[in-house]
């Protein structure tokens, strides 16, 4: 069993399934996702449109003025709208990173498990080496190296892609290991043998026969990874090495707000922080619920 699964594997989660908490977290997640996806239509102000931002509106405290529910930041941007647009970037990066790591992890895990031999040994050795380092550190180092290695203008253009790549590549070994494990079990079953007897190629057997049978646990890991990916993105952006400031994410918003924490304008950082925690917490809760729902034996 992998670390995260074991770590969340407790009786509390079992009772969770039947408790209203799962429902509540689903609702929170839904609000976060809808707010982020529909930001251009729902948000009170369009913070990406620089022409509509007025410096005269800067530093409005929260809950004082209609249309500026959560106050405004140093540039005169509405904090609520900024959170909605920022959540969009965070969610986009998170989902893309998880998709990327899942595709890489499943492909490599399936290949390693099905082909075995040298390929297997090589791929798993690579996974071992990477697992020596915490995922966050891998993401940070990959991102930092790409930042230094790419010319400035190239990096600015593909910054979002770099972050997605860095976060995605940091979590593939875990998925690859899981998939490899289930593939080793499936490989020796009779339906695979039957497929081989009728002369199907390895690629065909892996993609259409083995793959559907090893995807179950991947779904759970991917959901839990989404929470992790959102946190990693926010942390990288907070450190100033994630998404560029031109495309605000929750992390960049908190980074900006952090500068005003000491001078009393707490809302600029705290509200995006709350949004981030709400999003991650609900995703994590859902991931665990999903695991129990998919596999009741896994207690």
């Amino acid at each position: 069993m992998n670390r995260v699964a074991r770590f969340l594997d407790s009786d509390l989660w079992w009772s969770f399934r039947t408790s209203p908490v799962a429902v509540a977290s689903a609702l929170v997640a839904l609000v976060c996702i809808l707010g982020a996806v529909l930001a251009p239509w729902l948000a009170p102000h369009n913070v990406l449109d620089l022409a509509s931002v007025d410096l005269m509106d800067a530093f409005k405290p929260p809950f004082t003025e209609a249309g500026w529910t959560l106050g405004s930041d140093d540039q005169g941007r509405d904090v609520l709208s900024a959170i909605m647009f920022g959540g969009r970037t965070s969610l986009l990066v998170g989902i893309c990173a998880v998709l990327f790591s899942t595709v890489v992890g499943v492909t490599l895990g399936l290949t390693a498990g099905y082909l075995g031999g040298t390929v297997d040994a090589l791929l798993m050795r690579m996974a071992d080496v990477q697992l020596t380092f915490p995922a966050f550190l891998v993401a940070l180092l990959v991102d930092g190296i790409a930042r230094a290695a790419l010319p400035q203008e190239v990096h600015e253009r593909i910054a979002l892609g770099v972050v997605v790549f860095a976060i995605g590549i940091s979590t593939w070994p875990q998925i690859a290991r899981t998939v490899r494990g289930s593939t080793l079990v499936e490989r020796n079953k009779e339906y695979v043998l039957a497929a081989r007897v009728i002369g199907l190629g390895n690629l065909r057997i892996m993609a259409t026969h083995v793959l559907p049978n090893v995807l179950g646990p991947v779904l759970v890991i991917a959901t839990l990874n989404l929470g992790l990916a959102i946190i990693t993105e926010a942390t990288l952006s907070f450190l100033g090495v994630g998404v560029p400031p031109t495309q605000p994410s929750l992390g960049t918003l908190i980074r900006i707000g952090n500068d005003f924490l000491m001078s009393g304008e707490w809302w600029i950082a705290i509200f995006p922080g709350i949004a981030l925690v709400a999003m991650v917490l609900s995703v994590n809760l859902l991931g665990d619920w999903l695991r129990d729902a998919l596999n009741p034996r896994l207690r």
Partner: protein
Amino acid sequence: MVAFVISRLLQALPVLLVVALISFALFTFVGDPVAAMLSQDASLADRENLIRLLGLDQPWYVQFWKFVGNAVQGEFGLSYRLSRPVSALIAERAPATLELAFCAAAMTLCIGVPLGIFTGIYKDSWVSRLLLTVSLVGVSLPIFVLGMLLILVFAVHLGWLPSFGRGETVQLGWWSSGLLTVSGLKALILPAITLAVFQLTLITRLVRAEMLEVLRTDYIKFARARGLSNRSINFGHALKNTLVPVITIAGLQLGGIIAFAIVTETVFQWPGMGFLFIQSVGAADIPVMAAYLLLISLVFVVINLGVDLLYYLVDPRLRAQR
């Protein structure tokens, strides 16, 4: 034993080699050191001379070998950003990071392990349930958000503790310590808590899971059947076997602390190696980045090696297999 150590060392070598190659590639392919060092009106002959002087006309593996040789001696050249030797910069920043990491690790182990044991033994009490719920929030709370909240409450509103820096330090040889002054200790509290909380929630949950697993085993049932007291079962029999995996956990946790020290140091502007690394990434300061990359991989390799060795010493089954 010797064979075991040697085989582990041989396995660790490729990791370091790959990281060294990446650092070397950063040095070689990013920027043009010759253009940076030559003046505008240098002739082509000057340029060739400098290239030969720097050894840049050699094949890449010769250059790589030289790079590794220098790295082993802690020689990484000058920082582009600060124009000072990288080795001096790192030696100056290391005590801050090590003191922070040590305090956070001590805090997590001293609080996390007992909490894990408690929630494992009394798994149905409301205190355990409450602790687990709180730890769940702790997992979802990004480390920098926690740091900010602590700053907001304890530095801005209450004004009890400083929000940035290390306070006064005392120089002990080359080591600058913040542990010996009141302001140094006060400055340490918030960063150490920030760094410890995430690891604390993790370790509590892992120890708890391990404890629950051990309590289910047959020999514990047998001990109960023999009529031993709960105290002797929990602490005499169960705890011993719970603590073996805790070694791995402690190793993992130390790794996590080193990784997340980068974030904590940035939030609290703690003058450590992680903060130095982030500033170097921002400024594309390659020598510092390369040195940090190699140093941190070395640290992780050593931690993993240490964990393996401890395991080998603690668990007799591993020795019997060989």
